[in-house]
């Protein structure tokens, strides 16, 4: 891919980030009635409300608020929590390892389970193996992930005390301890994405298997595993990659609920607490964090595309 193309994609990503930042800024403005009053809650004194108003800059004209806010955000200052007065960046950095561990393990589970199942199902579309795998995938798409987490906790942590039911342990306490804490919520989180990936992998692989170039590879004597490794994987991964990119966004949302079930203080829990308390700086930080992750992931997906698909690669040149 030519650098012009890359710059174009980058500009698109920055535009989305800008739009999200405007929406995040407008959140406070859109609150019906007086935002400071609402944040302070009932029974608060006049001084408390005024302090919040001053902290959020609500006493200034909107344009000025926006410019000041953008300037701060660009310099990496997301403000401080209205309640604890801790800087938002500090709160997020503290919570990030939990969320990243969860999402990371979940995506690995989703890829391993989903892609394998989809590929196996695609070998004989319409066969009984395909039927079973497709049914499981369909059912997994209908299951709420927090429910799956609860069931797994009851089975593996409460009924049988094999794994810890709640809490998080950092990697510094050992990989096994870390994994033991993370595996249940990550599996619950990854299951939905695995179902989605299995469906699309099956579709993509079945499509590739029916292509003329697979027939000519067979005509060259390629069979079985060779065929899959040299022709199917690369071609089928092009559509699957798009879905994988979307799943990262899904996981980011799913993590909110699953963290609550697993009693982990990740970014999701941070967001839920902030929302129930109307802690706008934290909420804005969370929304921006999600947007940044998603824009980065879609850029990586775009790059991976051009690496896998030579047509896209030379289209830019």
């Amino acid at each position, binding site marked *: 891919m030519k650098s012009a193309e890359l710059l174009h994609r980058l500009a698109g990503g920055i535009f989305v980030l800008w739009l999200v930042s405007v929406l995040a800024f407008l959140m406070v403005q859109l609150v019906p009635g007086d935002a400071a009053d609402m944040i302070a809650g009932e029974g608060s004194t006049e001084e408390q409300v005024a302090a919040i108003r001053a902290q959020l800059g609500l006493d200034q004209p909107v344009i000025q608020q926006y410019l000041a806010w953008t300037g701060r955000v660009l310099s990496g200052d997301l403000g401080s929590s209205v309640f604890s007065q801790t800087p938002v960046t500090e709160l997020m950095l503290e919570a990030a390892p939990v969320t990243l561990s969860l999402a990371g393990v979940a995506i690995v589970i989703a890829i391993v389970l989903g892609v394998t199942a989809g590929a196996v199902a695609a070998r004989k579309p319409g066969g009984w193996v395909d039927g079973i795998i497709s049914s499981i995938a369909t059912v997994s798409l209908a299951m709420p992930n927090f429910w799956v987490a609860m069931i797994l906790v009851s089975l593996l942590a409460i009924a049988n005390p094999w794994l810890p039911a709640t809490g998080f342990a950092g990697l510094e306490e050992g990989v096994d301890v870390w994994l033991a804490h993370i595996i249940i919520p990550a599996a619950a989180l990854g299951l939905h994405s695995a179902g989605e990936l299995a469906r699309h992998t099956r579709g993509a692989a079945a499509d590739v298997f029916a292509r*003329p170039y697979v027939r*000519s590879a*067979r*005509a060259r*004597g390629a069979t079985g595993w060779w065929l899959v490794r040299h022709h199917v994987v*690369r*071609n089928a991964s092009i559509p699957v990659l798009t879905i994988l990119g979307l799943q990262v966004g899904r996981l980011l949302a799913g993590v909110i609920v699953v963290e609550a079930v697993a009693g982990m203080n990740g970014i999701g829990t941070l967001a839920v607490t902030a929302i129930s308390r109307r802690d706008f700086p934290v909420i804005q930080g969370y929304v921006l964090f999600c947007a940044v992750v998603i824009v980065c992931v879609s850029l990586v997906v775009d790059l991976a595309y051009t690496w896998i698909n030579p*047509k896209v690669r*030379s289209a830019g040149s």
Partner: protein
Amino acid sequence: MIDTAGAASPRTDRDAGDSALLDVRGLSIDLVGDEQQRGLVEDVSFQVGRRRSVALIGESGCGKSLTAFALLGLLSRATRVSGGSALFEGVDLLTAAPQQLARIRGGPIGAIFQDPMTSLDPTMKVGDQIAESRRLHLGESRKTARKHAERLLDQVGIANAPERARSYPHELSGGMQQRVMIASAIACDCKLLIADEPTTALDVTIQAQILELLADLQRGLGLAVLLVTHDLGVVADFCDDIVVMYAGHVVERNSVDEAFARPRHPYTKALLGAVPEGREARAKLPTIPGRVPPAGSFPEGCRFQPRCEFAVAACGEPQREVEIEPGRHTRCGRVAHDLLQLEARGGTHDESSART
């Protein structure tokens, strides 16, 4: 492997029967799950002699590509071979184990297909696709196979082979893509090349170049070629023998020269009538009225009879393939019994109409 090295020289060996490289007998193909077993292809027999080129011709929907795919063991899941045999160097291609077939495909039997663009893997360098055959069959390393791929590209007339080997299919023209397909098919010294409509998707000028290349390779490497086509012009330029298929049946087998001079089946004659004299007049093809009936609604008796200008009541009876002279077979009962004498163009002597 059976080696019949002592075969007579190809030009005089008209009946390739015993020494044939490929001997297809009674091949039938069914739709899977069709209880009535209405064959898509029924009782197809023909031979391909060593170093000979045989045309498998007919309009689209006649079962010629199905026949070719069946020989390669590449039928889609919806269809299956329901009978017959196809001996290639002592191995029955129709009943061989999948691993054995895989060793033959890309080895002694190479194949090229209709649309080279979609027949090449878009994500793989063309050199690697050619090298794939050598790695699979000769166990060559990636590096050695690549060297051979460059040599093969050179052999099929692609200039600047080392650089071209690193191209992706979409960076090449249609003609070059088909040359790449040919190079990958002959990469392991194949003896039989099955070419399914190899020039149909190409421009007229490129068609001629590809045919010329095939002819050169055939002579140079001593290849036998089974050419599936619907274009009699291609057959006239390139082939020794002709196998005419209509609605799943072989209706005539003959040498090309003989069939063009004196067709032994009304369908062959009709096809010849549909070919313009000068090849440049291709745009205005006179066509045979009507169309090939879909499988399952074939008429009783001779399947061509509804479209045949010579049809009589007796054509409603089942017709068998008859060898009228050595190497010449017809499925037309009236031709077989000398009731009908066909000529490529113009006057045709119809005994029965003369008598009535």
